[in-house]
């Protein structure tokens, strides 16, 4: 049996859970793993290496300070290089290769999967030297970096702000760092001195300005050995990114009130908590690989073992802390006069409106009102929404230079952050300006979402309800025994609709001008729903007479999308495009066809909106509801950005809506909500069965 000796430099021997000697089955091979904790004692570590040199198969050393590369040079603590050279017969591994390759990869993957969880956040590193590989990744994410290296190693009262500054610091400080002994109590403890001291004649302050600045961040990056030896009070309510963690330490973090922990290396074996050195040892033994492992091998292993980081939500954010903001703008200039403070101007509305439009567009936007009493049905979390108004009418918005609009939107985001909002939703036309939220989200201090995922989901809910109300198609085993058509299926909303509907309808017709894109989409749909029946067409007219539901998403701007005469009586046309695909004249041709535009939703709880959103009662825009949902779930991230929406995200927001109790409330037609009478009328026309006469 192969024998792996693991020496954990940073664990204290008193932590007896970390000291073990077991036969463990790793990926089908039984090995003996003996781990000893040396409690930052370099002499003891050396003696143990000498002891096991020659009578074990591999020695894994963890928790020693890593080597740091800077400006083409490498800094290795002399005490550490001594240790690794000691063994004459047995190979010694320290897991650094594995750690350097795996960790940045894992964090990047996590960020990509969860769309900008970290992007543009404030990120503090206890030591850029120890987490150098992650530092580069976070700079790529455009984060505001704060490195405590000067304080960490030398207790100097300043922080570094970029990897460039870090390299300068290391190259200056390396002769000094080399002389520091590696031992307990040498490094800083990150404890904030509560005592205020007098600073000159100007008053009192705390001594450790650098720490105060350091503690301001939302995300902290460190390694287990560092975190074990420092004060953790400042982590309350924050997110921590850590290389490895055992259960005991996670419990400790939970007690300290840490909100979220992202652990780089997942649990490899239920019995032991694995660290990078041990994993490298195990991999080397299992695959008989040469050590140190080569980068290409590491990637193979990572792939084969399906390693990925794990997120632990240790403490939910307290409910009072979950506010969101939503930015709207007046749809017409008349809406300005709905503001309570401008009520008195209403009699002069007609004369003032055009000049008002120009004047208001000069302003920065303002706080309009709030929504209170939104309460999740799932976890009872109450959230509050703050509504801001950007005083641009749609016309003004489209005319203005996008960058000036971005600036104002970011200004509102910053203001929203000051009153405690953690996420901002972009309403109406503000989300279609320029690149649809991408730039705003980059510049905003808090995450931004367009809310389009829930808009798409709610439109599909509405279409489903409309089809049910029309009652023209049978439902069997949860599947409509009819045909649905998606026009403009290869666009982002079209594709998502087609994918979702393919699971709900017997047959899906996808229509788009380019046939090759249709084939691609078909194969994607079949991947998701292998049983789906997908029909392709470049022209709607062939299948139109047989479809009970038609979704149009083309935004063809005046070009005729479909011939109304071909539409099946009693069908529902869901017009998702803005501007609409179906003109008013076309709609009037067919009173027996129901034309709807979207679905608006209701928030859970006794909501109270103190502003007029141009919707009835407690009904809100779906995009606002998405922002509220993300707050209820505590997922403060830029969920939906840009014009493209994503199938997974729509499914996800759909589930979140069900979980927290956001419901469809109204089916919206071209001119406001559709009433029961309108449905009844449309249905009766369809049931008459005679050839419809156009109404003029």
């Amino acid at each position: 049996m192969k024998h792996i000796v693991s020496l954990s430099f940073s664990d204290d021997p008193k932590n007896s859970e970390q000291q073990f000697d077991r036969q463990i089955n790793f990926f089908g091979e039984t090995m003996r793993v003996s781990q000893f904790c040396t409690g930052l004692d370099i002499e003891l570590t050396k003696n143990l290496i000498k002891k096991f040199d020659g009578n074990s198969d591999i020695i894994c050393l963890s928790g020693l300070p890593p080597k740091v590369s800077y400006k083409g040079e490498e800094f290795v603590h002399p005490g550490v290089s001594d240790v690794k050279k000691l063994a004459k017969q047995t190979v010694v591994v320290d897991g650094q290769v594995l750690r350097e390759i795996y960790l940045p990869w894992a964090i990047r993957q996590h960020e990509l999967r969860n769309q900008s969880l970290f992007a543009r956040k404030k990120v503090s590193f206890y030591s850029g030297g120890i987490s150098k590989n992650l530092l580069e990744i976070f700079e790529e994410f455009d984060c505001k970096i704060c490195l405590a290296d000067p304080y960490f190693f030398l207790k100097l009262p300043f922080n570094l702000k970029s990897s460039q500054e870090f390299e300068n610091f290391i190259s200056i400080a390396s002769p000094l760092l080399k002389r520091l002994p590696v031992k307990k109590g040498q490094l800083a403890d990150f404890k904030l001195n509560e005592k205020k001291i007098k600073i000159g004649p100007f008053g009192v302050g705390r001594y450790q300005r650098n720490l105060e600045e350091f503690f301001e961040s939302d995300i902290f990056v460190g390694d287990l050995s560092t975190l074990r030896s420092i004060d953790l009070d400042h982590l309350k309510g924050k997110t921590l990114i850590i290389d490895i963690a055992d259960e005991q330490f996670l419990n400790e973090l939970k007690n300290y009130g840490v909100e979220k922990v992202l652990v780089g290396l997942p649990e490899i074996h239920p019995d032991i908590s694995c660290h990078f050195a041990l994993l490298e040892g195990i991999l080397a033994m299992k695959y008989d690989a040469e050590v140190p492992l080569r980068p290409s091998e590491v990637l193979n292993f990572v792939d084969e073992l399906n390693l990925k980081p794990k997120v632990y939500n240790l403490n939910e954010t307290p409910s009072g802390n979950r506010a969101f903001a939503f930015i709207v703008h007046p749809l017409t200039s008349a809406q300005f006069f709905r503001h309570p403070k401008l009520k008195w101007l209403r009699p002069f509305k007609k004369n003032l409106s055009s000049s008002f439009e120009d004047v208001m567009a000069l302003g920065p936007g303002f706080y309009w009102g709030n929504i209170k009493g939104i309460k999740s049905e799932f976890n009872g979390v109450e959230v509050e929404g703050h509504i801001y108004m950007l005083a641009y009418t749609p016309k003004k918005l489209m005319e203005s230079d996008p960058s000036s609009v971005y600036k104002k939107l970011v200004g509102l985001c910053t203001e929203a952050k000051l009153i405690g909002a953690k996420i901002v939703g972009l309403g109406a036309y503000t989300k279609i300006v320029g690149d649809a939220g991408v730039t705003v989200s980059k510049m905003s201090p808090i995450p931004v979402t367009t809310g389009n995922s829930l808009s798409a989901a709610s439109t599909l809910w509405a279409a489903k309800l409309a089809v049910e109300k029309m009652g023209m198609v049978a439902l069997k085993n949860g599947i409509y025994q009819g045909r649905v058509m998606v026009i403009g299926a290869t666009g982002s909303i079209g594709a998502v609709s087609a994918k979702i509907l393919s699971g709900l309808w017997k047959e899906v017709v996808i229509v788009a001008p380019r046939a090759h894109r249709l084939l691609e989409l078909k194969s994607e749909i079949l991947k998701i729903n292998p049983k789906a029946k997908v029909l392709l067409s470049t022209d709607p007219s062939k299948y139109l007479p047989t479809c009970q539901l038609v979704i149009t998403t083309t935004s063809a701007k005046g070009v005729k999308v479909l011939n109304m005469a071909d539409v099946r009586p009693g069908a529902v046309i869901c017009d998702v495009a803005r501007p609409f695909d179906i003109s008013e004249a076309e709609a009037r041709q067919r009173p027996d066809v129901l034309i709807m535009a979207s679905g608006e939703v209701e928030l859970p709880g006794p909501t109270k909106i103190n502003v007029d959103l141009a919707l009835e009662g407690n009904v809100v825009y779906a995009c606002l509801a998405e922002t509220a949902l993300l707050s209820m779930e505590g997922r403060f991230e830029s969920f939906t950005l840009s014009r493209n929406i994503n199938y997974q995200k729509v499914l996800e927001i759909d589930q979140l809506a069900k979980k927290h109790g956001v419901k469809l409330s109204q089916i919206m037609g071209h001119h406001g909500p559709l009433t029961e009478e309108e449905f009844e009328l449309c249905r009766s026309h369809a049931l008459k069965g005679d050839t419809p006469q156009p109404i003029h």
Partner: protein
Amino acid sequence: MMKFFITGSTGILGKRIVNILLEAGHDVHLLVRPESYSVATNLFSSPKLKIWNGDLTNPDIILNNEHISKLTSEIDVIIHMAALYDLRADRSSAYLSNVVGTQGLLYFANQCTNLKSFVYVSTIAVAGDYQGEFKESQLECGQNFENNYALTKYEAELLFSSWKLNAKKIILRPGIVIGDSKEGKVERIDGPYYFLQALAKIKDKKFLLETLKYLPMPFKRGAQIPLVPVDSVAKAIAKIALDPPDKMFARYHLLSSANATVQELLQDSFRTFDFKVEVIPLPDTKVNDLLMEKIGLPKELLGYLYSEATFSNSELIKDYPEIMIPSYYQFKNNFLSGAVNHFLKKRITAKKNIFKTDKVRKVAKAAAQLLGREMQ
């Protein structure tokens, strides 16, 4: 008949236990280091005995382990007594022997398929600088340690306590082991014997101490020193190993409920060597380190002299009322006379220059001056 596997069998406790078990007719397997092999063969002779060469700190604790699978399937009880008992040991060697060694044996115990119980002989030194009554159920209470022996024994006990083992785990913590309660023979110079040895050296320098009425010594008034004679501890360990308690995890203090205080011990020791001086306590300061060095005692002993812990043995009395550990007052005469015989006899043969007379004279003089001033 049971099969025992014993480490530390060549120590003063070990050899007594092995003999008790052999006399009772049990099979005994000993693990000894190659260099102690001849010691072990000289100490014991019985057909029931098997000696294995090995080292607890090696990954495989038994050398030439061809028959190991037979051995591991047969062992009923493991008694682990091997330890580096040296208050002045450095951290590495203490850790290697006491922690790595224990871990190696625990791994071995995991391979023993029929193991019923594992008796681990610890020490009351795991209490460290704990203040108050240290109960048998206690271990982790934030104590600090004066020496690496106590620290590594504590770490090993933590390791043993949390180890997953399909057998009864029994931790025994004897007090400070001294010689036989009847013969009083000195077998190993440690603990109180250091002090007695120092006294023996200045026996004929009596005139120095006769001028003094009081002598300040580094100790704390009321500090207890739980001395236990080796024969009674050996009997207790053998008894518990042969008749383990009805629980999967047990801890016992092997000591008497009536322990001597350090003051009593020092006073009795002075009397034994015919010094009439009365000892008075010095406060616990760094100066004591220097003083101990001058007297010729290891400064690691200071932990015992200023100990604020008392030890309860209620679990032992509850589970094993028949085990008798004599109190200090029962064995003190034999103990002290044994020491006098040992050290004075030895002194005659020893060279005269061992004792640095002038240094002690200086210390005594200084102490006398200091005290004279205070008394006035």
